[in-house]
């Protein structure tokens, strides 16, 4: 288990991470979210042992993370961390060796992963000759080639098309099933929603939202109703408790402040004869994120 306990980090007088705590068990995919400058990278660097927290503890399997355990960790940074003058093979041999792998192990795993990602013909190409998406694939390959016990993914889908995102997702899920601890950061909430069961949202270094996504969504009282009916926007807006009505191509998205309003909305809609859709949905993670972070950001 990865445990972050009351971790605080200052850069001079600037508070980068403020008393942060969370736990991630084996096989779990955990989301670490936040706007730019929220403290995600600092947290990742502290987990990797690159930075010392001013206070608090970070442990992996009850042991402090140091260079004796880094061979079992995989790290994909937000920016490309590839030595662009090297070939794909040289790069993987280099990073693999730093993970304590033998050349034979690295080349076997490399062939397997290159085939999975459909880029076997790039093995002897220089990194700088590859497209942004293919560079990201190589970066991902170097992060997972040691089948890490702890995998840190900072914006893993950057520069990827939907097809390749699916390839990454499959590989991440395989690692999670094999018991890897995965911490994941992304600005794309739909990715986080798809992968993570638990998350923490950081703002100015402080956790403003944390827990299981399911619980977070349940606790979040605001809901959305999708309606296809012969009703007007004004009629919906006049209902007490309706926060907003968004008129889409052939339907309305009605934002309500709580479940109690659903009946009132239904009564108004049911007066009309041509009702083909009335669906109540939980708000998206993106909506909760924007609402929570925006609310705190303004304070």
């Amino acid at each position, binding site marked *: 288990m990865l445990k972050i306990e009351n971790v605080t980090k200052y850069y001079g007088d600037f508070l980068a991470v403020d008393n942060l705590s969370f736990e991630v068990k084996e096989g779990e995919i955990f989301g670490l979210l936040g706007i730019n400058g929220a403290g995600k990278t600092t947290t990742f660097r502290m987990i990797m042992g690159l930075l010392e927290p001013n206070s608090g503890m970070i442990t992996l399997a009850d042991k402090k993370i140091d260079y004796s355990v880094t061979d079992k960790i995989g790290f994909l940074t937000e920016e490309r*961390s*590839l030595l662009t*003058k090297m070939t794909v093979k040289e790069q993987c041999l280099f*990073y693999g060796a*730093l993970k304590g792998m033998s050349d034979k192990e690295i080349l076997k795993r490399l062939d397997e992963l290159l085939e999975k990602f459909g880029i076997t013909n790039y093995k002897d190409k220089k990194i700088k000759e590859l497209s942004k998406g293919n560079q990201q694939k190589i970066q991902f390959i*170097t992060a997972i080639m040691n089948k890490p016990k702890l995998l840190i993914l900072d914006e893993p889908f950057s520069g990827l098309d939907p097809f390749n995102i699916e390839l990454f997702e499959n590989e991440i899920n395989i690692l999670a099933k094999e018991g890897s601890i995965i911490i994941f950061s992304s600005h794309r909430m739909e990715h986080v929603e798809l992968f993570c069961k638990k998350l923490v949202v950081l703002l100015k270094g402080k956790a403003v939202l944390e827990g299981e996504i399911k619980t977070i969504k349940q606790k979040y009282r605001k809901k959305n109703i999708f309606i296809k009916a012969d009703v007007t926007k004004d009629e919906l807006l006049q209902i007490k408790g309706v926060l907003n009505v968004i008129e889409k191509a052939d339907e309305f998205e009605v934002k309500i402040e709580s479940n109690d309003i659903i009946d009132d909305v239904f009564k108004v809609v049911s007066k009309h004869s041509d009702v083909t859709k009335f669906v109540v949905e939980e708000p998206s993670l993106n909506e909760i994120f924007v609402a929570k972070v925006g609310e705190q950001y303004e304070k």
Partner: protein
Amino acid sequence: MRNKLNYLIGVSLKRKMKTKWFLIANIILAILIVGVINIDSVINFFGGDFNEKQKIYIIDNTNETYNLFENQLLTYEISLNGSESESSYEITAYEDGVDEVKELISEEGNEIALIFDTDEDNLLKATVISDGYIDTIDYQLIVSAINSAKTVLALNNLQITEEEYNQIYSSANIERVILDETKTGEDEDMNTIMSTVFPVVILPFFMLTIFLVQMIGAEVNDEKTTKGMEIIISNVSPKTHFSAKVIAGNIFVLSQGALLLIFSIVGLLIRRLSGGSNIINGVGDEVSSVISDIMNSSIGSQLIYIIPLTLLLMILTFVSYSLLAGILASMTTTIEDFQQLQTPIMIISLIGYYLSMMAGLFKGAIIIRVLSYIPLISAILSPSLLVLGQIGVIDVILSIMITIGFNYLLIKYGLKIYKVGILNYSSSGLWKKMFKAIKSKENQ
């Protein structure tokens, strides 16, 4: 489990040495060094000939200057070359007229014609004819020989023979007596000799220092700018990374230095096997003479410890430069920043180079003695002062001790800076961060 330090050293060396540029640079260096050592054979191969004698045709209308001129020219040649060897001039009396000799010279191209006459005061006057420009040394020798011939002829008129003239103008017989028994007359000439020899010996050291600083700076910056450093430092400690860069850099320059030595030995072997002639104007003889002078002086017997001490001081100085380059590179975020920061290092190195070339001028002044202890420049200044007899072996040992101390401080405090700088991508407040890192106990 592989050793990560050894692996990083291997990767650094491979990135530097297993490149086409390293191969091309060394092929060029090999050709250049072997070529310079065998320059006469090279020029002969392309049609030139250093052994070809300069032809001089003489029309002597005075009937007494020919032999006199020939003797004086030979005397000046011996004086110039420092030893008696075969003359490089072929002098021939020309029997036909001036117009014919002019025609001959314009046909053959490289020949010179001298026409000796007397003026209204019955003194020698000469005309020098050539198709193009005459080599400066040849021209000066000819003019000097003509002037001497003129003086001899004038003195002859006063009943003074050429023999008497040579006695008058020969050098005085000077006996040198030095009361300090530890010093010899041969060592007295070492100032001049070493001022010629040392720039040649220390130039490769200076060149390798530049290679070393640039290699470490470029590698650290490449890893920083590509953010590859994040992955590297998350797997190996900054101490291991720093050590790998310093060790690899030093192995590289020592290997490059060894290659330069091998190229020189190969050049000399080729020269010996091909029976190469003396290099331009007897430079080959000059080299042999310098080596012989050095071996005959007290330095010759001291070389057994001068060479190891100099090599040790140079290796320690390479370590100083590499530590400094690594620390500075960790503080920069781009190669342009590093180039700016490395300028002071290069200036220090250049100061050492010029001071060692001018060491003889300081005549053992306290200032030059103190400068010879300063790390980074001591490697070239200290040995040059030692061979000039301005400092003793104990001073060189002191320079070695100071450089070891300097390296210890660079490692102790530099590593703290390296740990902070290596993952820092902002240049704002950089010096403040560095001083804070030095004071920090956490990084120890």
